[in-house]
């Protein structure tokens, strides 16, 4: 069992629609106590009971890490997704009781940095909101570059530019504004660390540019949660638990294992942390690797799978679980 699977019972105490796509949710402890502290960049995994299926989706905490009375998250509605964000947007009401996990941080600030250079795309802004609050309290030096579609969809643009007029730079795609990345990276003082949260294309662009300019890998941090994708149903056998069952079309392998009553490890549920890595004993078919944890040769070997995001196509897959 992993740290992130410690649960907390909470009540939804506020729901604020920010714009067409993004809504903010506030959670307080159901027993009235204080929530655990966290550090900027941490996420919590929210349990959603949607009829028959239970979904566990990770969301970055955006509230002030020093405030233990409540956690807030901002959720972008994904109409094409498997339903987690739609469930939060449509089914959750103020006063509902929910279960969330203890916070886990896979995107922490490196406090040895002399300066924190943050690059956000769209809803990728959320972890930075908590990090900026943390840094403001400790006089940390930061600069945020935030790209979003337009003013109307730019969540928290006004809050950020009002609170930190000299440190926040916003780019609206619709107005043709773009980040001059090369110039931004070139000339950063020694000891600067980069943090990127946004779409895959943005993450790769920043990482590649930084590498070309000679930035050490250790100074470039990024967070990209993959959402599990739907796919063809398949049969899985768990050797140790001696169970065999079907993974549904809109279910992830990890969700199916949990639904079968087996306590499997996880932290991020997005193919990033490595916690859920599972040995494959037999596979009559093809593993569809979707994580960015396993090395290419491990993926090719067919001996490992990350059940939070990866699937299988074929007759049966046997796991060492």
């Amino acid at each position, binding site marked *: 069992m992993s740290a992130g699977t410690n649960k907390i019972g909470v009540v939804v105490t506020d729901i604020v629609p920010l714009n067409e796509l993004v809504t903010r949710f506030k959670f307080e402890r159901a027993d009235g106590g204080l929530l655990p502290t966290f550090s900027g960049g941490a996420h919590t995994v929210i349990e959603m009971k949607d009829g028959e299926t239970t979904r566990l989706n990770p969301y970055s905490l955006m509230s002030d890490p020093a405030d233990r009375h409540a956690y807030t998250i901002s959720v972008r509605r994904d109409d094409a997704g498997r339903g987690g964000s739609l469930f939060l947007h449509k089914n959750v009401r103020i006063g509902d009781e929910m279960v969330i996990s203890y916070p886990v941080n896979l995107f922490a600030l490196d406090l*040895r*940095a*002399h300066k924190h250079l943050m690059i956000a795309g769209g809803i990728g802004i959320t972890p930075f909101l908590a990090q900026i609050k943390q840094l403001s309290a400790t006089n940390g030096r930061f600069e945020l570059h935030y790209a979003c579609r337009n003013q109307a969809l730019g969540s928290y643009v006004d809050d950020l530019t009002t609170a930190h007029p000299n440190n926040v730079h916003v780019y609206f795609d619709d107005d043709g504004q773009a980040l001059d990345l090369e110039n931004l*990276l*070139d*000339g*950063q*003082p*020694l*000891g*600067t660390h980069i943090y990127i949260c946004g779409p895959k294309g943005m993450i790769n662009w920043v990482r590649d540019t930084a*590498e*070309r*300019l*000679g*930035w*050490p*890998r*250790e*100074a470039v941090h990024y967070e990209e949660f993959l959402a599990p994708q739907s796919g063809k149903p398949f049969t899985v056998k768990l050797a140790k638990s001696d169970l065999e069952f079907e993974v549904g079309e809109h279910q992830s392998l990890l969700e199916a294992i949990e639904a079968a009553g087996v306590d499997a490890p996880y932290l991020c549920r997005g193919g990033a942390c490595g916690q859920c890595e599972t040995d494959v004993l037999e596979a009559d078919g093809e593993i569809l690797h979707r994580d960015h944890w396993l090395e290419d040769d491990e993926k090719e070997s067919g001996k490992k799978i990350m059940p939070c995001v990866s699937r299988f196509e074929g007759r049966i897959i046997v796991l060492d679980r």
Partner: protein
Amino acid sequence: MSTFKFPPSITSRPVYGTLEPRSGKHHLMIADAEGAEALFDLVEKDPDLIAHAHIMYFPAADDTGYAEKLKAFSPSKLYVGPSYSAAVPRLRRILQDAHMGLQVYLAGTEGLMGQAMSEATNAGIPHTAIQTEHRGSVARRMQCVHCKGITENVVTDPFTCSHCGLNLFVRDHYSRRIAAFQGVCVDAEDPGNVPPKRELYS
């Protein structure tokens, strides 16, 4: 040949590699004595580096021409100085004005590499991003764990602390912060019972 293969030891002991050219707009190379040979090899791998290289070099007292050879490469900047310690303010200034993307290459003795490494990490470069290559003497920079005094150029085990005079045993236990190995009193239990001195790695 100026290379020496250190036997495997505890994880605290630094390990050194071979300098490899890396992409970046600026390259800072710091070497002492035979460390110059590692820079020659590096430049041979990528001759374009030299035009963007700032070299700080500390020749041995009996330098046989390494400094001249480095000069002949005509790097963008070359500083040849009498000692590392005298050049620390200069190095700090260079690091203060430097930008991300700077590549740091250290070559030569452990004492030089360790101290320059600690300046570079204080300036904000992750230590794993700094390249090192050992060349030349295996002499060590030692800290006496009792009086905290530093003794440079220790070549025997045990040795006498140049500050408090205790007989110290040379450990592989290393401090990155002060760039020195730890020396521990060898005859604390039985004063005067000091094992015979041996040259390091002999």
